[in-house]
C-alpha cells in the first residue's frame, strides 16, 4: 500500500504525467492561439491523427525521426491552411467544419494506415534527452530532466506563445481579431489574414502534438489519440486563454491520469473500481475549476465569422 509513497514511484509517476501532458500542451496551446483570434477549432483530434500517422509512416519508411517530426509538423500546417480556407475565406460555420476535419482525420489516418502499413510495426522512438547534471539529481532528474526533446519543446512553447501573443504586433492583432474584429478592421488590420495565420499556427501545433504522441510510442494505431484532441480543447477553457493556465491544465490532467494508472498497477485501486477511477482526470479537472471559481470570458468574437458589408 505505502508503495506509492516511495520517492521512486512518486517521481516516476510525475515523469509519466509530464509525458502524458506533452500532446495536451502542444495541442492546447495551438487551440488557444486560434481561439484568441476568434476561431474555434473542433478538428484538433483529426489533425493530431493525420500528423501522427504521417510522422509514423515517415519514420517507418525513412528511419529518420527528424524527417518524421518535419512531416508531422507540415501535415499540421497543411491542415491549418485547409481549415483557414474553409472558415476564414469561405466563412463556414466553425463547428461543422471542425467536426468535418475530425471525421476526415479519423478516417483517413486509419485508411492510410491500413493501406500503407497494415500490420503494426515499431519505429525508433524519440530518444530521451538527459539534461546534463540536472538529470543526475536523484528522483527529480527522472521526473523533470529525462524526457524527449519534444517534451521539453512543449514546455518551451509556453513562454514562446506568451511572447507571441503579448509582445508581438501579430499577437496584438490576434487578440484584437478575437475580441473586437470590427475595431481591428477599422484600423486597417486584415482580420482575415490574422485569423488565417493564427489557425495555421494552431493546427501546426496540433500536428506537433500528434507527432509527439506517436513518436513517443513508436507505433501508430487507428484512433491513436483516443480523444486527446478534445481534451486539449477543454484545457483551453481550463486555462482561461492563458498559456500558463493551459500548461497547468495539461499537467493536472496528465498527472492525474498517470497517478490513476500507477495506482492501478500497484493495486492501490482495486480492479473493481478500474473504470470508476478512470473518470478521475475528467472529474478532478472540473472540480479544480469549480474550486478556482474563475470568471473569465472567452474572446468576445469567438466562433463569429467576420465580414465587412
Amino acid at each position, binding site marked *: 500500500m505505502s508503495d506509492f509513497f516511495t520517492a521512486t514511484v512518486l517521481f516516476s509517476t510525475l515523469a509519466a504525467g509530464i509525458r502524458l501532458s506533452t500532446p495536451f500542451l502542444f495541442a492546447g496551446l495551438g487551440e488557444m492561439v486560434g481561439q484568441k483570434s476568434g476561431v474555434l477549432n473542433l478538428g484538433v483530434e483529426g489533425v493530431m491523427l493525420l500528423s501522427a500517422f504521417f510522422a509514423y509512416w515517415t519514420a517507418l519508411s525513412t528511419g529518420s525521426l527528424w524527417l518524421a517530426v518535419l512531416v508531422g509538423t507540415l501535415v499540421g500546417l497543411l491542415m491549418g491552411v485547409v481549415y483557414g480556407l474553409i472558415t476564414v475565406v469561405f466563412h463556414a460555420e466553425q463547428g461543422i467544419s471542425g467536426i468535418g476535419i475530425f471525421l476526415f482525420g479519423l478516417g483517413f489516418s486509419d485508411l492510410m494506415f491500413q493501406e500503407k502499413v497494415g500490420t503494426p510495426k515499431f519505429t525508433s522512438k524519440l530518444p530521451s534527452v538527459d539534461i546534463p547534471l540536472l538529470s543526475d539529481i536523484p528522483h527529480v532528474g527522472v521526473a523533470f530532466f529525462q524526457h524527449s526533446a519534444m517534451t521539453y519543446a512543449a514546455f518551451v512553447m509556453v513562454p514562446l506563445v506568451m511572447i507571441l501573443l503579448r509582445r508581438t504586433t501579430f499577437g496584438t492583432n490576434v487578440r484584437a481579431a478575437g475580441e473586437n474584429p470590427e475595431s481591428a478592421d477599422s484600423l486597417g488590420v486584415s482580420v482575415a489574414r490574422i485569423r488565417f495565420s493564427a489557425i495555421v499556427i494552431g493546427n501546426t501545433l496540433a500536428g506537433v502534438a500528434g507527432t509527439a504522441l506517436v513518436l*513517443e510510442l513508436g507505433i501508430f494505431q487507428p484512433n491513436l489519440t*483516443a480523444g486527446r484532441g478534445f481534451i486539449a480543447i477543454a484545457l483551453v477553457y481550463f486555462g482561461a486563454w492563458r498559456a500558463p493556465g493551459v500548461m497547468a491544465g495539461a499537467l493536472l490532467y496528465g498527472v492525474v491520469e498517470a497517478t490513476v494508472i500507477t495506482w492501478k498497477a500497484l493495486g492501490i485501486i482495486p480492479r473493481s473500481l478500474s473504470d470508476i477511477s*478512470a473518470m478521475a482526470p475528467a472529474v478532478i479537472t472540473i472540480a479544480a475549476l469549480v474550486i478556482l471559481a474563475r470568471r473569465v470570458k472567452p474572446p468576445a468574437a469567438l466562433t463569429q465569422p467576420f465580414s465587412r458589408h
Partner: protein
Amino acid sequence: GDDSDDGGATGTTAPATTAAGDSAATLLKIALVAPSASDDLAFTQSMVDAINELSDPVALSITDGTFVIEEAATAIREYAAAGNEIVVAHGTQFGASLAEIAPDFPEVTFLWGTSTDTQGLANVFAYSPDAAEGGYVNGVVAAAISSSGSIGVVGPIEAGDAVTYITGFNNGALANGATEVSITYTGSFGDVALAAEAATALITNGADVLTGSAQMVVGAVGVASDEGVPWFGTQANQTSLDPSLVVASQVYHWEVVLEEMIAQRKAGVLGGEAFEINLANGGLEIEFNDGFDLPADARAAGDAAIAGIIDGSIDPNG
C-alpha cells in the same frame, strides 16, 4: 422479411480471396463482419487468416472496422440478403443483433464468436477459444523466466476475452512460483499511450515480464521492448513487434472449427452447435519465438503445462 433486391448491388462484390482460375460461382460464399481492421495482429486478423487457411478456397467478402454495433448489424443483414451462404459475425457484441437477424434468413448459416452458445438458434454455429488455456501456459513460462517473481499484465476493460486470458495467465503464473501478478486494466481498448504508461508503472514497480490483451497493448509492448522486458502475446503471433523479446504467443487457429462447421452445413446441418478451439484440438497453439533465448527448463515447464491441459490434469480456470 428478406429484401432480395439487394442482390443486384452486392452481387458486384469482388471476391477478396479467390484461388486463381476458380470461377467465383462455384465457390462457397462467405462474408465476414468484424470490429477491428483485418490486419490488426489480433482478433480480426486471426479470423481472416483462418478463412484463408481453409482447405477449399472460398469467395470472401469482408466488412471490418465496424465497431459501431448497429452498423455491423446492417452489414450482417445485408450479407445474408445478398446470397452469402455463411456469414461470420466475428464479435461477441454482435450476438444480440444476430438473434434478430438469423431467424429472418433460415437458409443462411451464421457463425458467431466468440461465444459459447448459439442462443438456441438453429442456423447459428457458435465458436470460442478457451483463451485461459494459452493464458495459463504463457503464465507458467512467464513465471519460469521471471527473476523477481513479479509479473505485469495490461488489459483493456475487465470483460470478455481479456478476462479469460488474464485469468488463465494469472493462474499459470502463480502455480509456477510467481509471487505477484499485477493486473492493470487501463479502461480503454484504444488508448495506446495509457497502455504504455501502465507498462512503465508495472516495470517501475518491479515487474520483469509482461503480457497483455487487446489492440492497445502495442503501447505496452513498446515499453517492454525499450526496457528489455520479455513479452507474452495472445490472439495472434506478436513476434514481429519485437523479434528478440516476444517469448511466445497464443495463436487462434479458427480454421480447425471452421472446417467442421462448413462440413456440417454441406451435410445439411445449418447450425445449432457451439465449438471451441483449444490446445487439444489444435485450434489454440502456443507459438514460441525462436529468436528469444528461452531457457530449456522454462520451455519444458510450458510444454508440460500444455500436456497437462490437454490431458485434463490441469484446469487453467481453476
